[in-house]
């Protein structure tokens, strides 16, 4: 299939660096209107994304979302107020809307006191990262996907196009991140809840790479054709594939496992590590690996992130993610974390179990491809529950015996990645976040699979 970002479809002309120049122009013009000691912090995020939603290898919905959001923080000394507008792309209209917003923010500023936790970067450090892709036109992509789904039950979402994020301030700093990417997040369904899930994503569509993904999924579906078995609650030797690991780590991260504020307020799910010095297995090394992620390396107050922040080293706490507000509140330097202080480019160092023979390492037990809907049974103890989903198999002597009907687990991090962790695979899979809440995510993770001696299942 040919790949071209500037085809003839209506309204699909590439924007080049138009968005970057437009943002720069808007902020520069607004800077000239600031009064007194005002400082303007501005962030823009946007996308022009084509979406195709599929069910049973046919289209359910398809279309294009074109959106740009400008967020500003207007600062005067230690007092500040913030707001956002959608940008229409019409210069005079957007300028007027922004001016009106700033007027409102000045009025609101009269009601707020000094903010002792306000911190923004005052040493301009401009950066630019633009990654162009070669993405097929929507009709070509649809034809390719439907061809792969021919005779199969393909369900999922295809998304492609430009996404961008920018930071600028009235001190002259400019940061820009833009990429053209695609991702097809899909399943081949066999029946009921038996399916093989897969993801094909990147900057350059490659027919052969896609065909290899399709072939892998087709073989997984074949394995699912065997009669499924139901396991009783109990403890089972288990292999957690990288996507299953991601589900656990996302939950723990979202609730502050690696954030300074959650540590200081004792809300971290890894509280026992903080209070009692409990450790995970020495095999576990977790970091925020910005250098190898796909997220921008700057954040909304203008701070740049270091290439790497070690979070867990040989099973013990190392550093935390520190947002600018937390830095001020708790008197430590920021490391450029986002406000919620969760990793955007998490990496777990691989181990020594050969990935291509992980079945042999498992021997007899559960092979869990995906976990689903994790949450806490007891957050302070990092006791976590969730379900198996998609391709989960019972293995015997390293060979697939049968697919397993969904199981609920309920176990702690200190077992799963602690005293029950036998090893990690020797490769870490790059997992792009397919989330599209509000806009396409730029988060990612690089995770190995984990072999767990005994995992507790309860339902």
């Amino acid at each position: 299939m040919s790949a071209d970002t500037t085809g003839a479809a209506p309204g699909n002309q590439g924007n080049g660096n138009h968005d970057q120049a437009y943002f720069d122009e808007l902020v520069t013009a607004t800077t000239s209107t600031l009064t007194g000691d005002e400082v303007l912090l501005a962030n823009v995020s946007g996308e022009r994304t084509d979406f195709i939603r599929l069910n049973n290898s046919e289209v359910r919905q398809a279309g294009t979302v074109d959106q740009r959001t400008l967020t500003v923080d207007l600062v005067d000394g230690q007092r500040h107020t913030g707001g956002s507008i959608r940008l229409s792309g019409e210069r005079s209209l957007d300028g007027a809307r922004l001016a009106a917003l700033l007027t409102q923010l000045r009025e609101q500023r009269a009601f707020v006191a000094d903010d002792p936790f306000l911190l923004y970067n005052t040493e301009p450090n401009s950066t630019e990262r633009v990654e162009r892709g070669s993405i097929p036109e929507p009709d070509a992509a649809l034809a390719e996907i439907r061809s792969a789904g021919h005779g199969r039950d393909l369900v999922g979402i295809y998304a492609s196009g430009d996404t961008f994020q920018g930071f600028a301030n009235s001190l002259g700093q400019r940061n820009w991140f833009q990429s053209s990417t695609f991702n097809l997040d899909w399943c081949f369904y066999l029946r009921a809840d038996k399916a093989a899930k897969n993801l094909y994503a990147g900057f350059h569509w490659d027919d052969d790479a896609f065909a290899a993904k399709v072939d892998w999924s087709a073989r997984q579906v074949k394995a699912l054709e065997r009669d499924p078995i139901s396991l009783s609650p109990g403890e089972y030797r288990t292999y957690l594939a990288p996507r299953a690991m991601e589900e656990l780590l996302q939950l723990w991260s979202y609730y502050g496992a690696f954030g300074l504020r959650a540590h200081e307020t004792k809300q971290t799910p890894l509280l026992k590590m903080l209070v009692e010095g409990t450790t995970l297995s020495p095999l576990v090394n977790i970091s925020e690996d910005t250098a190898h992620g796909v997220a921008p390396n700057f954040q909304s107050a203008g701070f740049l992130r270091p290439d790497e922040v070690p979070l867990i080293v040989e099973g013990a706490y190392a550093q935390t993610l520190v947002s600018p507000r937390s830095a001020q509140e708790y008197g430590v330097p920021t490391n450029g974390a986002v406000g919620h202080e969760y990793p955007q480019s998490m990496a777990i160092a691989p181990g020594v179990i050969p990935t291509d023979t992980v079945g042999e390492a498992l021997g007899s037990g559960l092979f869990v491809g995906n976990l689903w809907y994790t949450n806490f049974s007891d957050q302070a103890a990092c006791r976590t529950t969730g379900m198996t989903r998609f391709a989960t198999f019972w293995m015997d002597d390293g060979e697939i015996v049968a697919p397993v009907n969904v199981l609920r687990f309920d176990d702690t991090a200190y077992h799963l990645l602690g005293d029950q962790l036998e090893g990690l695979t020797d490769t870490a899979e790059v997992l792009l976040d397919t989330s599209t809440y509000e806009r396409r995510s730029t988060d990612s993770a690089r995770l190995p699979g984990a072999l767990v001696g005994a995992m507790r299942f309860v339902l």
Partner: protein
Amino acid sequence: MTDLLIESTALEHRLRTALPTDVDYASARFVDERSEHLRVRRNQLEPMFTEYDTGVMITIWNGGGLGYAATTDLSETGLAAAADRARYWAGVTAGAMVTTAAPTSHAVGTYMSPVEVTWDTLPLNDRLELLQRQSRLLGIDDRIVNWGASLVRREVDQLLLTASRSGDMGRIEQRFRFVYPSLNATANEGTNTQTRTFGGHAFCGQGGAEVLGRYGFGDAAGQIAEQALELLTAPNCPTGVMDALLAPDQMILQIHESIGHPLELDRILGDERNYAGTSFVTPDMFGSYQYGSELLNVTFDPTVPGQLASYGFDDDGTPAVRQHLIENGVLVRGLGGTVSQERSGLPGVANSRAQNWNRPPIDRMANLNVEPGESTVEELIGSIEHGVYLHTNNSWSIDDSRNKFQFGCEYGQRIENGEIVGAVRNPGYRGISSTFWRSLSGVADRDSFTVMGTPNCGKGELNQMVGTGHASPACLFSDIDVFGGEE
């Protein structure tokens, strides 16, 4: 920035002009939102934030294809480009669609959230002082390590214009006014951290400043802080099979996850299988399946004044009316808009909804309510020999068929021989949806019936977050698998 765009005749003219009249069905769904976010954390005002969000989605069904284009460019040129893009997509997808059942409604009508007390009566300075006062009432003890009070207001105006080659034209104008008050207190001793909140963020709804009084926002902080501290010394919830009395602020989660989502017709039709999941409910169950005990009556009711997901029309333009989904325990109707009803041949409701102008409508819950029974809460407690009373959801997990679930609550009370004998921490319970509701053995009366909402329900590809409304009295379930936290 006070002129309401929805009142702009020039904008409406441009939207109407952009809509093609030579297609099977076309719509322009314009959304204009203004919101204010105020939060005090540990007695310190967090950065105040004001949000303006404006855009339109143009949708075209034509010749067996469907396309949409969402844009912030509301100029004549921008809207024309969006219409062209939607038409392009309809051409690309023609012959490849899972359904060609376009919406058919060209309704004309209006809806407005009922506002009893305007925010003029509580100006910004007073709103900030209200939050500061609540914050001070929450941070009453050194063991309370984090606390906060917040107030979010959203004003959402929506205009839906429709057209078709048959000459039909619809116009629906809806103005929503949402209020989301919130309180939280977290207490800690050693490895024990406990959090209590203001109904787990469920005490929200439509209206004006009166919403605060509706839920007792100004009087709740003291009890929230005291109960967070109480939980530090409370024993773990006992483990075993026992009766579980669910308070309304836990019932809403139970309804949402194990009735609402399983009854969504798009899940039953398979649209969500790659993300949110499928359903244990199959088409043949409608009209005969005993979903719960005879005490169970569940309505889809978008007409409840002030409930979070009340509206006059869904986003396909279908007029919204109150309908029973489960009657005396029997499943009678699913949650699906006109497109899903046509695809499945099943009865549904007006619940095709989108998060915003930049997302296409899909089947969503709106107000999904358990109708009150005849027992008092005291009578239900008195009937329990051995059990727990569970308050305020804080953990939810359910399988992709919406069957095997495990839910947790902030605060539990142990009941022995018909009396509450003390608080317990980390209470949770497990069950299976397809049998759980049959263990419903008591439904409290209207005195405990509480109208609430779930502000953030995620679903769909592309992902969408919408507010859903739930109302319920306290309900008693027999022989439930209950457990506590780690010892």
